[in-house]
């Protein structure tokens, strides 16, 4: 219990200053380094290639209203936007907001479910890229009760 709490506090307390001291070693070829290293969610979203985001009700984000353990927050995104090419998940107040990008092809349904870490209460934003090059978005607030974990 203590260990988990410390882990969580370390993550929550990891400010941008601390984060800046630890460069990521990106070895993978297909990895959006500028997007993942962006510290502001706007910059992260720009690095997805999205200049304008269109708010859409055709995106469903399934996540808890209150997450008692910020180390494990289940987030699932379903898009009903035709020809969805990719789904990205952005935890807006994380030290590095962009958490994941999923590129779909060859029959993959526009759906992805993962578990992410969240340092604090924040909006979780889904960014969907459609084949026409447009970007659509929706968000949901997740309250993280850091002190209540374990």
């Amino acid at each position, binding site marked *: 219990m203590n260990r988990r709490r*410390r*882990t969580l506090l*370390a*993550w929550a*307390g*990891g400010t941008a200053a*601390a*984060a800046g001291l*630890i460069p*990521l*070693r*990106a*070895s*993978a070829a*297909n*990895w*959006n380094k500028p997007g*993942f290293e962006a510290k502001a969610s706007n910059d992260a979203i720009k690095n997805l290639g999205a200049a304008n985001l269109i708010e859409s009700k055709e995106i469903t984000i399934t996540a808890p209203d209150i997450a008692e353990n910020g*180390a*494990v*927050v*289940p987030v*699932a995104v379903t898009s009903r936007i035709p020809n969805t090419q990719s789904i990205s998940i952005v*935890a807006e107040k*994380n*030290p*590095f907001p*962009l*958490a*994941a*990008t*999923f*590129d*779909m*092809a*060859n*029959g*993959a*349904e526009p*759906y*992805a*479910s*993962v*578990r*992410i*870490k*969240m340092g604090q209460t924040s909006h979780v934003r889904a960014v969907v890229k459609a084949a026409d090059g447009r970007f659509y978005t929706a968000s949901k607030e997740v309250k993280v009760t850091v002190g209540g974990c374990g």
Partner: protein
Amino acid sequence: MSEPMRIRATVQGDVADVRILMRHPMETGQRKDAKGEIVPVHFIQNVVVTHNGRTVVDAQWSQAVSRDPFLGLRVKGAKAGDKIAVTWTDNKGDKRTDEATIVAAS
């Protein structure tokens, strides 16, 4: 050596529900160990899922994905007996591939 993934793929109609559980520390690079030293960042950056050899999902992850990651996906045009293979690559260049056969949902 990395531990094997657990992959469960069940098909209902022609849509396969794929659930993957990976074993990985997913260190953020912000956590300190018992000695107060920062644990180096170590996380899965890429996950590629194939259906009968064709890539269906190509994912890029940050260190914000939880330890021992779970990934849920759905693949259309699938049938029992088809193969689902998953490969992850982490920021240290370690890789692991595991495969499962799609079964009919009970």
